[in-house]
């Protein structure tokens, strides 16, 4: 949990109340705030090569369907 009790909205008192009343929502918002601030460890996104390979697969698939007809 956030040691300083600060969140994006409402201040320390609101944060503590929300953590107690709705811990799931509190945790969701806290992690979203991490994403916004850049401290959330996001995995590396798919690279161009992955998209190219998926695209090649689509083209091969279309050729197979055309041949099958």
């Amino acid at each position: 949990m956030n040691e300083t009790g600060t969140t994006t909205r409402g201040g320390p008192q609101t944060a503590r109340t929300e953590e107690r009343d709705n811990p799931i929502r509190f945790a969701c918002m806290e992690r979203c705030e991490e994403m916004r601030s850049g401290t959330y460890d996001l995995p590396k996104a798919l690279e161009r090569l992955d998209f190219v390979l998926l695209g090649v697969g689509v083209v091969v698939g279309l050729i197979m369907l055309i041949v099958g007809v």
Partner: protein
Amino acid sequence: MSTDKLSMDEYTTKEARLGIIPVRMSERMYSFLDLALVAGSFAIATWVYVQGISLASVMSMPQSLLSTFGAFLVVIPLVVLIGAMANRYGIDHWILSRSTFGYLGTFPIFVLILVSTVGWSAVVAELFGSSVVKLLGEAGIEITSVWGIRLIAVLCPILGFIIAFRGIGAVRLSSRIMTSLLVLVGFAVLLMVVFSGDLGGAWNAGPLSGVPADRTAFMLGTEWNIAFVFSWVGTIGALTRVTRTARGSAWGLYFGYGILCGLFIGLGALLAFVAVVQGSEPSADPTDYLLAVGGGWMGLMSLILVGVANIGTLAVGTFGMALSSKILRPSVRYEWIAAVFMVAVVALTLWGGVLEHYGTFLAYVGVIAGPAVTLMVVDYYIVRSRKLTPAGLFDPKLPAYRYTYGFNLVSFVAFGAGFASFLLVYDPVNYVPRSTGLFNTLTATGTACIVSAVIYVGLSAIPAVRRYVLRDRQPMPAAGGAETALIGEWSEQAGRLV
């Protein structure tokens, strides 16, 4: 205080893995291989043989293979891209879909998909029941009562639930064992078919229905294949959000849902052709063909493992849908939702009508899941250029994804257009095309996907509509401000859901 803090951290970690809280990298458990095996475990069950046999009834063997791999290669990237979205944020794709359909608009789409997944699960259970009864028959124990068969069938969702109940680790462990065994069985069935059957005769045989395959018949089978791939939309995000890398997530799904499943459908078609060429009567039940071609212990061994595969499918299905269903009420424990899912599948299995209407059921899946998946992909990758405001996904008081009373009207117009175009092209009740030209070119689900995507992207290009769709790019007012008051009491209610 420290104990409280620790227990809260543990609670949060549990809710991240079995709930809606975004999953951090340190909490992710699946590698590429894990995901491939779990996805494979879900995809491979008796239904792949049923799908193969359905294809064999309307087209030749080479056409069955081309239709299966062609459709899979074209459609599976959409599934992979949705998995990549969930992997990126560690958030289930149904939560992410709030950006596409709106905070409340996601609910009806999700419920429709949930219903279809319960239906699929009932199909799996019914096939499990018929396989076990055939096995018992081979052992000299005859069960002819319909209710006896249905009671055996419900063992499948119950056993699947027991695995899913243990959580994400148990699902991974069971999938490792079952998928590995299934690959071995598939290889054994392939050897059995190659060495005991007339491959040349099977290759040159016409469709098993006896009706020559024309273009419409080929596209009908392709339509079934496309709907088959889309049917997995319910459980994608639950699996990829706990996968450690984007690449592992993408190619794990591609291999498990795509390549492995396609191979088994092809094997099902091959099995049907070889069995019929050898003299078996055409049947809709793969058990008949396995016993006819394999005979003796080989057929029985295959049947046992295929039966077990159905339990693995329902374990992953129950896990994925229970986890995704937490979008409806996040505070309810995962275990309870899994139990409700299991009870629903048991009830539908005892009714026993889904398999009877398999073609109509596939059409239902295609018409709902096709446009839904396409809109999610188009919205995130094209309209939003892969940028979201995650806080807006969880807080209905923020305007980011509230749109019009919780519904993104643009996506619903596009979805409705896709839905209507499907019905204009294909009659899902009588399994006949209404517009032969379009059906024979794009299939009904393909038409629905393209229409939805074009309308959504086209409308989003209009400046006023673009501002409406991309409200998450505008500064968000503080909670309780004028924007929140627009929804008022309803917003408060939805807020408690999160």
